């Protein structure tokens, strides 16, 4: 908040992303699908390549030079993650393959051994399948119940209803920081405060939070925070589970193998300390190196700067879309980040996606891995444009012009 906003044009950032500098179907690419996966800056691509060329070896197990370099690079990235989200300690940063694995880890290691029939897991109607299905699985395994907090027609969590649902039978709350399909920023402060009063742990699905907002897990006060490297301009196959140390300590490992042990005998295995207890097997070392480079890159710009730049661009996009005749915006929450879902006339979102692609404009179409949310709105899918800080007003203008073409074709 206090940080000065850099008065730099987005064009300067855009040039850092090689993939954005290309034509698709003969037109300069307009990439509006960062919520599905973000592009990587040259700094990330180069860091991964340099690591592969010069430093690669296995981590945590060699005395030789390359292994030490690889370990330093890998563990150095963990330190960067810690600082980036302001975790209290590096032991609270578990590196995973993504948000999905992080949430499954909590469901299986934290919840499964403790859940009893009658207990509840509380989520919202806005969630991505990754924050629904792992809870359904553990509920099936334990006889617990999945409870869903409702949302209103604007796509906002009905906070009063959600707070009412937080009773003593709730074992854990899972909630998105930012909803991927609608861009809604969820009322984390209120939910976490109420949960804390009752001692209920909260897992935040931060897959769409971290790329757009300045995240401080201690200030948020959540117990778990999960996110993916590839949505924050890093490589695929990387992700993070932040967990409060006390909780992580109390959890059994969820996968067994190398790296997660101190000592193995056939009678008894002693598990490694945090966070290695949860990192069985050779990790995605080069990916994590790239994740570290992505964090360096983002820190240099400053997440507060990114958030305020994107907010203004998002407002511009909404205003411009609203001018398009026949548009129906899905998701009109007061607090939004990055994404806007919409429908145009009665054109199916898939047809819209193809027509826009033909004009070089990449958007996501379909159910956005949030089928219950789509059902809530009586839709099978939407078109979704999602912004990152490398987008600019020209991109929005191109989107709007492309929608005009779609109207012509389907006129």
């Amino acid at each position, binding site marked *: 908040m206090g940080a000065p906003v850099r008065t730099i044009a987005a064009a300067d950032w855009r040039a850092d992303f090689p993939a954005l500098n290309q034509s698709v179907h003969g037109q300069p690419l307009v990439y509006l699908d960062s919520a599905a996966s973000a592009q990587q800056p040259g700094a990330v691509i180069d860091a991964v390549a340099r690591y592969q060329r010069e430093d690669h070896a296995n981590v945590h197990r060699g005395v030789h030079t390359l292994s030490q370099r690889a370990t330093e690079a890998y563990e150095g990235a963990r330190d960067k993650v810690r600082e980036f989200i302001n975790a209290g300690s590096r032991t609270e940063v578990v590196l995973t393959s993504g948000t999905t694995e992080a949430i499954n880890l909590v469901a299986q290691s934290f919840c499964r051994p403790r859940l009893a029939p009658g207990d509840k897991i509380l989520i919202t109607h806005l969630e991505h399948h990754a924050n629904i299905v792992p809870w359904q699985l553990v509920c099936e395994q334990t006889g617990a119940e999945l409870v869903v907090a409702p949302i209103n027609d604007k796509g906002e969590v009905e906070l009063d209803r959600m707070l009412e649902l937080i009773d003593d039978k709730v074992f854990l709350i899972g909630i998105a920081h930012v909803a991927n399909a609608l861009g809604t920023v969820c009322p984390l402060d209120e939910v976490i405060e109420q949960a804390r009063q009752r001692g209920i742990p909260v897992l935040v699905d931060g897959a769409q939070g971290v790329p757009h907002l300045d995240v401080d897990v201690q200030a948020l006060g959540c117990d778990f925070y999960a996110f993916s490297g590839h949505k924050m301009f890093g490589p695929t196959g990387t992700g993070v589970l932040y967990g409060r140390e006390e909780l992580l300590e109390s959890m059994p490992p969820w996968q067994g193998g190398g790296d997660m042990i101190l000592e193995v005998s056939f009678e008894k295995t002693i598990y490694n300390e945090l966070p290695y207890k949860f990192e069985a097997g050779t990790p995605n070392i080069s990916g994590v190196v790239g994740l570290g480079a992505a964090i360096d890159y983002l820190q240099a710009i400053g997440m507060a700067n990114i958030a305020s730049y994107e907010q203004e661009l998002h407002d511009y996009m909404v205003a411009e879309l609203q001018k398009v005749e026949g548009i129906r915006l899905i998701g009109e929450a007061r607090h939004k980040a990055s994404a806007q879902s919409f429908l145009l006339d009665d054109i199916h979102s898939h*047809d819209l996606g193809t027509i826009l692609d033909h004009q070089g404009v990449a958007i996501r179409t379909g159910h956005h891995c949030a*089928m219950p949310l789509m059902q809530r709105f009586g839709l099978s899918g939407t078109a979704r444009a999602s912004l990152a800080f490398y987008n600019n007003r020209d991109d929005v203008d191109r989107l709007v012009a492309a929608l005009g073409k779609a109207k012509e*074709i389907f006129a």
Partner: protein
Amino acid sequence: MTATARDMQDLYRELVLDHSRNPRHFGRLEDATHTADGINPLCGDKLRLYLRVDDAGNIESSSFEGSGCAISVASASLLTDAVTGLPVEQARRCCATVAERLAGDESAELASNLEKLRALDGVRQYPSRIKCATLAWHALRSALNHDAVPATTE
């Protein structure tokens, strides 16, 4: 005309747009002898196909309901036009021919009742959309086989 507009008109030919806007045989068929659901898990589109097959093994009537993109609705609509009146065995063969043709096999000659399906040829340029065009045909095959599980494009 720009290249974009031309390409797009190749995909969204008049006949496709017409069938998607005004699908033929749309709705439930009350005395159906065969039904099947087709699901495209990628986009969540769903359609249900109904057939009434008479004792002689001819498809007396057919219909479909559900929602989908212009390509999948047009394909379903064209399907019901094409198979109504056909012996079951011939309809089965149509499923195979259409699938081959949409997959890009030019030698898969369309019988006269399938002539109109040429309108869907444009889809071959769009690998991600071929499934939209084949969905109804997958459903036709499972309806004829009395499959219990919905047909999917995956």
